[in-house]
């Protein structure tokens, strides 16, 4: 990493503080995310969701999606009750993060970004349940936020970031490799900077920083879980919107070995079936993201 290059990102992150929605929604929300479910103030969460009419509508659309069990909630309060507090916090956070980038300023377009993020969140949660990871909602949140650095790069250095994506698309290579080459740092490092600035929980910060490093000893087992989910999404048309020329033996990945040490059930997982289930959810992921995040 080129320290000088990434330090240019910091002022842009600090400038986000002045956005009204950051103060009104994101900051209280992030501190709420760190709290255990039984200590979250539901009234406060309903208030946060209702702060912005568009965000509230998007939250309702997401809450009523078959991906989350199709609840037919008509009010924010009933959606919060039906979905559970942690799920609503994650939904509200993704809607608020989306508003950080003005519609015409996206580099990797909003729909591609959110399909990947939501896909990774859902796959992380699904894998978490399959292997017996005790906090599937944490896995969901970590999957949802793992690429937050892409938003940072979009805001802080749009032109250089555009070059990274173009080069990655041209060479069919992974985005972080292209960033390393053209920016001197990756979305993992810029994402970490934002996550620390906003006081995300330590385990989520680890996921943001190390999700491209399958061999990372830091943050196990959550980092390993999101690393594998991220790869799976990129291999099933929920990636960055271009062809990454790769063949991945997931069960031979270092992250698999790490995860299996904690959760031996991973070795019993029916990977072909999981893959087909991801394909099955695709239509609804696309429909939902189009409805909520299409500029």
């Amino acid at each position: 990493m080129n320290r000088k290059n990434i330090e240019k990102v910091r002022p842009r992150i600090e400038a986000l503080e002045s956005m009204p929605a950051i103060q009104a929604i994101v900051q209280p929300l992030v501190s709420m995310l760190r709290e255990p479910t039984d200590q979250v103030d539901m009234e406060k969460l309903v208030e946060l969701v209702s702060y912005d009419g568009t965000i509230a509508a998007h939250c309702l659309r997401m809450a009523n999606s078959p991906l989350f069990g199709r609840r037919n909630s008509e009010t924010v309060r009933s959606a919060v009750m039906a979905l559970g507090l942690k799920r609503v916090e994650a939904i509200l956070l993704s809607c608020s993060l989306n508003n950080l980038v003005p519609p015409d300023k996206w580099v990797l377009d909003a729909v591609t970004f959110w399909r990947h993020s939501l896909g990774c969140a859902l796959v992380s949660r699904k894998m978490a349940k399959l292997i017996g990871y005790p906090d599937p909602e944490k896995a969901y949140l970590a999957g949802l936020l793992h690429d937050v650095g892409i938003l940072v790069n979009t805001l802080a250095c749009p032109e250089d970031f555009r070059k990274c994506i173009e080069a990655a698309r041209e060479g069919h290579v992974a985005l972080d490799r292209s960033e390393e080459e053209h920016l001197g740092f990756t979305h993992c490092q810029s994402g970490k900077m934002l996550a620390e600035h906003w006081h995300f929980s330590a385990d989520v910060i680890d996921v943001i920083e190390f999700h491209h490093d399958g061999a990372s000893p830091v943050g196990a087992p959550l980092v390993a879980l999101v690393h594998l989910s991220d790869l799976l999404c990129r291999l099933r048309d929920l990636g960055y919107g271009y062809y990454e020329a790769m063949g991945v033996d997931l069960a031979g990945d270092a992250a698999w070995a790490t995860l299996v040490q904690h959760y031996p059930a991973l070795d019993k997982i029916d990977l072909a079936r999981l893959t087909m289930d991801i394909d099955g959810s695709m239509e609804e992921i696309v429909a939902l993201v189009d409805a909520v995040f299409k500029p």
Partner: protein
Amino acid sequence: MTAGIVKPVTESEDLHDPAYLKIRDVIYQISGIYQPEEKFYLLASRCARRMEAVKAKTPADYLEHLTVRGNREAELRLLLNEITIGETYMFRSAPQLEALRNVILPQILKAKSAMGFKRLHLWSAGCSTGEEPYTLAMFLLEESDKMLAGWTFDIMATDLNDRSLTAAKAGIYGEYALRSTNELLRKKYFRPYDDKQLQATDQLKSLIRFDRVNLNDDSKMTFLKGMDLIFCCNVLIYFDLSSKRKVMQHFFSNLLTGGYLFMGHAESLYQVDDRFHLVHFPGAIGYWKPAVGYAAGGKP
């Protein structure tokens, strides 16, 4: 094989009927064909045709035909036919061909070149009426002045059914089989047969050796060696577990180290084989015969 027209499932037919879950599980357990719940409208429409034929009134009635009735094995076979009908056309799996072009062939060519080999052997096992081997032949010929310059290659295409093999050798196809074959390839590798059909050129046919092989025939299977790639799509779904396992053992020894096996897009080898490594490519899954001494590292 002709096009499968999917009967639309009406609103009144309940896709959430738990019997569909059980039908899906029976199919998966016995054949290895999996259908995610989001695609139950397809499963329901395929079941609907069989339900009409056996006069089953509800999915639960039909489940009985698949599980407890005396003719359950025959019924499952007929249902599997419904499920896989219409899957046989050329260039059906673009992601699989992209994986071959972008990842697999570069890998295999590099390994073989290092040993001084310049020849590739492909096998379409259960080639039915020939759409798959002709697709592979076109793919290889298109690469012959690019990645495959200086290489020779051949395709063995086998099936048990003599009628299918006769059709495959004739190489005469209508619009359905050619629906994903672009104009350029049609002109290059086919000639008009009649006003509705095209026939494969001799150049295309010359790459393929058709043969009758029973995948259950150990004496024959044992002698098929040196394959780089095996394609076996929707064939093992009709085999029982012990036959599946035996065929997989053969495939493993038929393949060269570093070679790949490809199955149908909805087929799974879960609990059938544990020697192959499942490898993901963008939009496609292959089964890899690992190199000797392969250690964890993620990338074959």
